Each structure stands twice: as C-alpha cells, then as structure tokens.
C-alpha cells in the first residue's frame, strides 16, 4: 500500500468517526437535556433557600445538606424504603420465577391465565392501593371476613393501623401488583433457554437444582438482572400504594423517601430542602446502580 493510500484510508476513517459522532449528537443532546438538566437544576436549587414564604435564591452553600444529615425522619424513611426493597424484591423474584416455571409447559388455557395474571401490572398503582384499602377494611373488607370464617369469630384486625400488620399489608399489595411483571420477563427468558442443553443435562442425570444453577440461571441471568434492577428502582421510588393505604402512617412508620419528599416539597413547600433530598437520593442510587451493574457484569 502506497503512502497516498494510507493517508486516504486514515482520512476516510477519521471522517467515518466524525460522521458517527455527529449522528449521535442529537440523541446525546436530548439525553442531556432530559436527564442531566433536571439534576443540575435540582443541584442549583438545593444550595438556595426557596421555601413557602421565601424565594431567596442567594447561595446558601450546603445548609440543606447539613440539615438532611441531622434529619432523623429522612433516614427513617430511607430505612422504611430499604425494608420494602429488601422484602418485596426477593419475594417478587421468587414468585415470578415459580409462576414462570409453572407456565413454561403447554397447559390448556395458558394464554387466558397469563392475560389474567398480568392484569395487576396494568392497573394504576393508586387504584390498586385504593382497592387493597377496601380489602383490608376492618369491618367490610373481605380479608377480615375470610379470616373470621376460619377463626369462627369476628376478627377486626386493623391492618392499616396496627404496627405489626401494616408492613405485611403494604407488602402484600405491592407484591400482588408487581410479581406478574417479573413473571412475564422471566417466562420470556425461560422460553429461550437452549432446550438441547436441558435435554443433555437430563440424559446425564443432572437434578433440577443443578440444571437450574448451571444451565438455566446463566441463560436467563441478563434478563433477570435487568428485571431485578428495574423493580429495585421502582421499589426505591415507592409512593402510590403506600400513600393510598396508609399515607406513611401510623405516624411516619411506613413513610418512604418518596412520600417524605412529597410532603416536604408539595405540602410544606420546602423547595430547596427537597431538592437537596432528591439530589442525595439520586447520588446514592447512581453509586448503587454502578456497583450493582459491575457486579452483575451486564454493563459490558
């Protein structure tokens, strides 16, 4: 290859690279505008002092971040959120996987059952919450009625007030609504597992658990990881169902970070404080997601 050709090839490669860059500029711009601008704007607001009565946009440094560190209610709400994530996520994953296995084989009326199972996902969370509120009603709710039939006497359990019952009540509603989401994704992933490997494992005498661990899990892992990630993020933002059921009560016993942010931002009009809260949550989530993605090795 002569020097001229080499130069031309280099020029063409550079031009190709430049063209590619230009092609992604609009997408990057949109992402920056939609994704980054609100974050930067929140950051700016968080160092001002905008409240219900003051529109003080002067620089107040890390005033609100300092307050946040000392705000017990914020950290408690963070703890409540983690309880929901820590219990609901594994439960949804386990139940979703079990259901997906159940529906993997051809069964009569499979499509109808799948459609019925998916119904909770398409229900608005606030409607789902309101429905469960009626279900848990201590006088007229069917749950207490059913328990009463079994117990042989009236059982006026106060699901949404009793500290020992309120978490199970919310978790039941949340798991009921979102398990089908896990189920759908995992059913799709399981359907694509290489059948020849499964058959080979069966011929070699591998048991269910070994087959699952060494063949099925690696095959469905990317989908499962994404499903877990999506649900974890959703659960971290949990608002509607809790709001409809308890509004964060009794007291602040079930208040999540999202509910606390709503109360501070839209009921108390602590705009700058809420922006600081949002920024800290975004930061925590970004760090956690990066670590999780690296661990899951699905960012490559």
């Amino acid at each position, binding site marked *: 290859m002569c020097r001229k050709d080499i130069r031309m090839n280099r020029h063409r490669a550079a031009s190709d690279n430049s063209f590619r860059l230009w092609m992604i500029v609009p997408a990057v711009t949109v992402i920056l505008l939609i994704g980054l601008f609100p974050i930067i704007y929140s950051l700016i607001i968080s160092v001002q002092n905008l409240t*219900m*009565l003051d529109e003080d946009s002067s620089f107040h440094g890390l005033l609100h971040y300092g307050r946040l560190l000392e705000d017990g209610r914020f950290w408690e709400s963070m703890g409540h959120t983690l309880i929901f994530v820590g219990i609901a996520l594994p439960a949804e994953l386990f139940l979703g996987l079990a259901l997906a296995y159940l529906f993997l084989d051809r069964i009569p009326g499979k499509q109808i059952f799948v459609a019925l199972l998916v119904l909770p996902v398409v229900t608005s969370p606030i409607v789902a919450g309101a429905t469960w509120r009626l279900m848990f*009603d*201590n*006088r007229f709710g069917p749950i207490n009625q059913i328990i009463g039939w079994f117990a042989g006497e*009236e059982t*006026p359990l*106060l699901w*949404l*007030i*009793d*500290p020992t019952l309120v978490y199970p009540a919310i978790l039941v509603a949340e798991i009921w609504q979102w398990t089908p989401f896990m189920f759908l994704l995992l059913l799709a992933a399981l359907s694509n597992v290489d059948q020849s490997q499964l058959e080979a494992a069966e011929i070699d005498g591998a048991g269910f658990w070994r087959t699952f661990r060494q063949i099925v899990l690696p095959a469905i892992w990317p989908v499962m990881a994404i499903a877990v990630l999506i649900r974890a993020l959703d659960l971290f933002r949990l608002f509607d169902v809790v709001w409809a059921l308890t509004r964060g*009560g*009794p*007291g*602040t*016993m079930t208040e999540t970070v999202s509910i606390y942010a709503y*109360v501070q931002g*839209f*009921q*108390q*009009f602590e705009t700058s404080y809420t922006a600081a809260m949002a920024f800290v949550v975004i930061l925590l989530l970004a760090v956690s997601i990066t670590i999780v993605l690296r661990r899951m090795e699905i960012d490559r």
Partner: protein
Amino acid sequence: MRRRQFLVGATTVAGASMFGLPRRASAQAAQTAVDAAKQFSGSEISIVWEAGLQSLDPLNFSGPKWEELTGIKVKVIEVSTAEMFTKILQNHRAGAAAYDALNVIPAWMPDLVRAGALEPLDAMVDKHGFREELQSIAPVYRDNQMMVDGTIYGFPDDGDVFLMYYRKDILGDADIQAGFKAKHGYDLPIPPTTWEQFDHVGAFITEHTGGKPYGATFFRDAPYAQFMFQERFRNEGGKFFDAETMKATINSPAGVKVFSDWVEENKWMPAGVQTWGFVENLAAFLQGDSAMTVSWPPYGRWAAGYGTDEEALSWVPKSQIAGKVGYAVPPGGHPQLAAGFALSVSASSRQKEAAYLFIQWLNSEEVSLERVQLPYALRDPFRDSHFASAEYKSRWPEAPEYLAALGEGAVKGLLDLSIIQTDRYEEALRQGCSRLWAGEDPKAILDDIAGQWDEITERIGVDKQKAAYASWAGNAAAYPS
C-alpha cells in the same frame, strides 16, 4: 288626604320597611354584581372548588345561573381539599393565571396572603357596594375569617362547625335512664354537656344495649381527629403555646387527658373506629348504629332525610333515624369551626373584577340563602339571615332546632389554629393522632409533637411566629372565654 288613604299609605310604607326594604337591600349586592358583570359577557372565569359534592353548587346551580344572568361562563376546577393549598400556591408561584376565583380554607389565608397569592378585595367591595351586606355574616366568621391584618382577602362562605347529634329516643328511654341513674347516681343528661357526662352516657348505652346501638361513634381518622383534638384540648383548658416564650404547650395535662380519654372511649365504641372517616361515621349514625356523634352540619340535615332522595346523595345511606335526632353544641360548649371555606380572588388572575363580581354574587344574602339550602352542596349557614330564615326552618320538622344549634355554634365556636405555616403544626398533630391509634403512649406522643412544634417555630423565627400567634390568640374565638 283621607284617613283611609293615609292608613293604606302608612301600612304600605311600614310593610315595605319591614319586609320589602330589607329584601331590596339584600337583593342589591347580588343585582349590583349582575349588572356590573354584564360588561364581561362572553368571557369565562375559572374557580377552584373542592371536588365532590361541594362542587355541585357551581356545576349544577350557581355556575349555570350566573351564565344565564351575565353571559359569563364559569369553569369549575375541582381539587381535593388536601391539594387545594398546594395547587393555589403552585399556580401563583408559576405566575400562571389558571385560576380566577378561589375557595380557600380560612386558616390558610395568612399563609396565602404572605405568599402574595390572594388579591386584596377592599377596593372592589367599596366599588360594588358589598360592605353593608358583609356585616350580616355571623360575627365569628366575619370577624375572624375575612381579613388578614385589617384587609379583606375573602368572604366567609361556609359555616362549618362541629355539632353534636344525639338520639332523643335512646337517651330518653326510661329503662336506660333508670339504669344510668342507678349506676352513676345522677340523671342521664339530655344532651351531655361535659365530656365526662358524655363518656358516662356513651359507655353506659354500649354496655346496656350490647353495642346495638353503640353509645357513640366518631371519625377518628387522623385528618378529622386533629380538628377534634383542637376543640377538646381547648375546652379542657389547654393552650397551644406559651404566649411569652412561644414554646409549645400541647403536651400539657389537658392534651394528655384528651388523648388518654380517647383511648378509653374507643373501648366502648365499635372495633376499628380508629380508621373511621366522615363517611363511615355518617353511615353508622344514619343506620342507627350509634346513639351520639359529633360532626359537621350535613349530618344533621341528612339524618332528617333532607334531600337524600337527590341523585347526588344516592351514596348516603337512607336515614333510619329521621325525627329522632337532637342537635346541640358538643360537650364543653365551644365547638370547633373546623375548616370552612372563604371565597377569594387569585392575585394572578387576569380577570379579577369578573371573578370578584361572581364571588360577591355567590356570597350575597339572596344567593347564599339559596345555596345553603341546596341539599347536596355541603355549604352550611353562615349569615344571621340564614339562621333566622323561615324558609329554611320549614325544610323539616326539626330544622328550627338545627338552625338554633348552628347559630349557637357560630357564637361560641373556636377558630382553627391559624399562624405562619399552620399546616406544618397540624401535620405533626395528625401524625400524633395516628400514632395514638397505633398504641403509643399519649404523653410520649405529645412530648414529641411539642418538640416538633418548637423546631418548626425556631425555623420560622420565634419572634415572627410569636407576633402571628398573638394576633390569632387575640381573637375572642381563639380560646373559650
């Protein structure tokens, strides 16, 4: 002039002055508003109204009537009570002119005025000759729910007050009376006038009837309970703050007594009463499951069956107790003027005068009397003329007794706490109520609420809040006199 002509003339003048002139005077503000509003014919104004039954007034009655009279369309923006303050303030902050006229809860008024969201109305009141008619609004509403720092920002438009409703047949039952006297050593009071009497009567009836009916039921859900706490706490002698130091005194013995009494009362009320809101309690009372309750005025009308055959009220259980209900101010004698509504004009409206004229017309003697008699609209009597209205008194047999109790409530009523950022204080109280139902210790809860209140006061500024509290506490209706 002949004697006969003189007599006819004199009688006519006297009759006109007795009946005709006041009617003309009362019709004036409404007619003035209509005449002035015709210049805006063809335009549309928006008004924020509480969603649900409340908004049927402008949707079915006043809105269409106003359009017919003036050619101005009324767009009703329905917002739930919990969102109203937020939406109004957001609209103002965003500089959007989405709302022209507003319904505001009077306790919010100082905060909304400080934020600049409400239009001062004095100039328009004078321009359109409404000042005289404002004077016939019952004093407790007129003097406390209309102005902020001497300027008019809203017209009190809803005589919300807690009343006690009791079953005359049950409390008057000879067997119950005899049993009560044997147990407590005094005659069963009809109605009970102290909370101690109330608790004796309520517990006895539950015990005597085996809960069919219960002695009493309440709405105990926290948003309602906090209003009832404010009332009962002050009737027990409690003060919200130390006026000198602005330290919260809600954890005083009066507060602890109220919370402790509530826990005891729940034992003879239906299981799960802690979760009851307005509707659950209404259903229990109307179906005859409860001998006494305390609530807003619509309970009294619906218990009598007034208007409950209207389609809009089809969800209200058919009253099983019509003709058996007595009305009185709650024990303690000083009822909470819980919430209520005032009509205001949004400072960011681009049609302030048209909006103003609509609320003047709504609030006028003539139109407001029609509105408070709408069975579905939840607006309660708030003018002296409403309490005295012969038309209203003829609505059902016990209506005169009902109006008399409302009138008494308007004289003896206690204002909702209204200082800077009141909702923050009330939010802590609401949470406290729900913690009480979760089984926490009353004193510990109240100490915690007091701590939260002190923190809020510190953040707002002790001196600033002290001045606001002094201004509120200076009202005759802030504490029982």
